[in-house]
């Protein structure tokens, strides 16, 4: 058996490297092309990484992915003369820079807050949206704000700034981490957790569609969303900045904003949002209870004020 099996093995062992080689050969095919000196990971496409769903920033509508972020990146793609292709991937690998570094996509647009930790791994273009953290609870809940959360179960989304904020500011709460925004909201709805924390834009949108929950407070964190590119990809980053600036200038930004949030942006100044904050928290409960899915309603309007 000994001698025999050695000879038997020869063809088999030769196979292994052949297999490995053929695999490697398959790999190198999709070499990117460049447009105006900007390298793209796949020819004729601006590939965007995001994490679905994050309504109204990106979510599925029929067979398409639509949303605020999608429309903004579309402007950039249009400017480059290419089509946008969207890839759904875990938020962890977006914000850690892994997706951009490994060439899965050219830009990341995922309702992502610009912060120092992320800046180390990815490069952000100029901010395109102002956000804060908000508190979602059942409509009949007694919770009114941060002070009521001690000892309760609070849902956060993994890898988000909301999770970070909760870790720092809610030492007495039991934090329950969820992979998706919608798992988080589902658990708030079914009462498994007492409250959920996420960005105000999406939570207002959700509360507007679901009268059994309400946004009762906002925690002003002065956050701003940014589109990200791979570290050092300045050509693309600058191009995005140019497109954003031009869009703000000629009203296309306002148009897109109104399309998804129902109102015009209150102002391009981030500081304004901070001023509006105090009054906002008080109004919110009443507003959210109106359960206004209607885009022109007061509730989305007040959500707007706080965001900007």
């Amino acid at each position: 058996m000994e001698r025999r099996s050695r000879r038997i093995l020869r063809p088999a062992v030769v196979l292994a490297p052949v297999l490995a080689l053929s695999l490697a050969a398959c790999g190198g095919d999709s070499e990117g092309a460049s447009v105006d000196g900007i390298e793209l990971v796949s020819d004729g496409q601006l590939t965007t990484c995001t994490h679905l769903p994050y309504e109204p920033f990106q979510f599925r509508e029929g067979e398409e992915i639509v949303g605020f972020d999608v429309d903004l990146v579309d402007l950039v793609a249009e400017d480059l003369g290419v089509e946008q292709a969207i890839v759904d991937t875990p938020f962890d690998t977006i914000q850690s820079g892994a997706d951009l570094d490994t060439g899965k996509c050219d830009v990341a647009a995922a309702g992502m807050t610009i912060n120092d930790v992320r800046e180390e791994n990815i490069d952000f273009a100029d901010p395109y949206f102002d956000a804060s953290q908000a508190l979602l609870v059942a409509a009949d809940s007694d919770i009114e704000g941060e002070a009521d959360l001690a000892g309760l179960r609070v849902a956060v989304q993994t890898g988000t700034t909301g999770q970070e904020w909760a870790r720092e500011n809610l030492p007495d709460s039991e934090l329950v981490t969820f992979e998706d925004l919608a798992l988080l909201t589902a658990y708030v709805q079914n009462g498994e957790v007492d409250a959920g924390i996420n960005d105000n834009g999406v939570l207002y949108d959700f509360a507007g569609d679901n009268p059994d929950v309400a946004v009762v407070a906002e925690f002003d964190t002065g956050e701003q969303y940014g589109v990200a590119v791979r570290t050092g990809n300045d050509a693309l980053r600058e191009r995005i900045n140019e497109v954003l600036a031009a869009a703000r200038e000629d009203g296309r930004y306002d148009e897109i904003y109104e399309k998804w949030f129902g109102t015009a942006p209150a102002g391009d100044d981030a500081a304004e949002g901070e001023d509006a904050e105090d009054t906002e928290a008080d109004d919110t409960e009443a507003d959210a209870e109106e359960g206004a899915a209607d885009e022109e309603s007061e509730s989305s309007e007040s959500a707007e004020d706080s965001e900007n």
Partner: protein
Amino acid sequence: MSKRQRAKVIRGVQYAILIAAVLLIIVAADWGQIQRAFFNMDVAANLFPTVITVALGNTIFYTVLGFALGLGLGLVLALMRLSSVAPYRWISGIYIEFFRGLPAMLVFLAVGVGIPYAFDTRLDRNVQIMVALGLVGAAYIAETIRAGIQAVPKGQIEAARSLGMSPTRTMITVIIPQAFRIVLPPLTNELILLTKDSSLAFFLGSTLAQQELAQFGREALNTNQSMTPVLVVGVCYLIITIPLSFVSRALEKRFGKGVARKQAKASATRSGGQ
């Protein structure tokens, strides 16, 4: 109480427990809620036909890719494990322990994120899925095939060799076919496991057209705020896996009968010859 009476009572109690448990579940469950959450027909209708044409199709495609590589690599690893060259045995052993011991999720992350970092190359997404699923599958399949090869009676090798077959030819035409027949049930098992592991393709990112069942279901769950998509997707997995079990059982039966008949025939001729 006689022995028979006691057995009767015990059986009666067992039935009672079973019925009580079923009744308890029926009474305790909130059926209205379950229906709202899991059987929302409006939501379900919206999932079709995409859930079949795209999600189910991709799941099958990814599984077939992974299984093909897993089977090839697994066979090589099994032969290495049985090699008389010690380093081959070590490599194979380490490989199997490594990939059998790691959660498949980590392997997917390593392939999706690790390979591009390490080799500065971008594999096509389908190749990534094939590699990740194949690497995991190969570790299990290798052990299965090795067991199968070892289970082939030694007399088969001796007989083939004495007929003048080369060792390679013996392995390919005599041993491996018999080994595969023996390991058919555990191989089916592995195929079913890979079907479910293909859900981890999520870690490699996907466009809408590349979504497989689990990701499709999760996204639909999140968008519709209903558990119905999860149920639909679950049924889709069963559509794949249950027929697989049937096919495997049918094949087993057929091969099994074939073997029995051949063996009977062989022994008959042998005795007749004597």
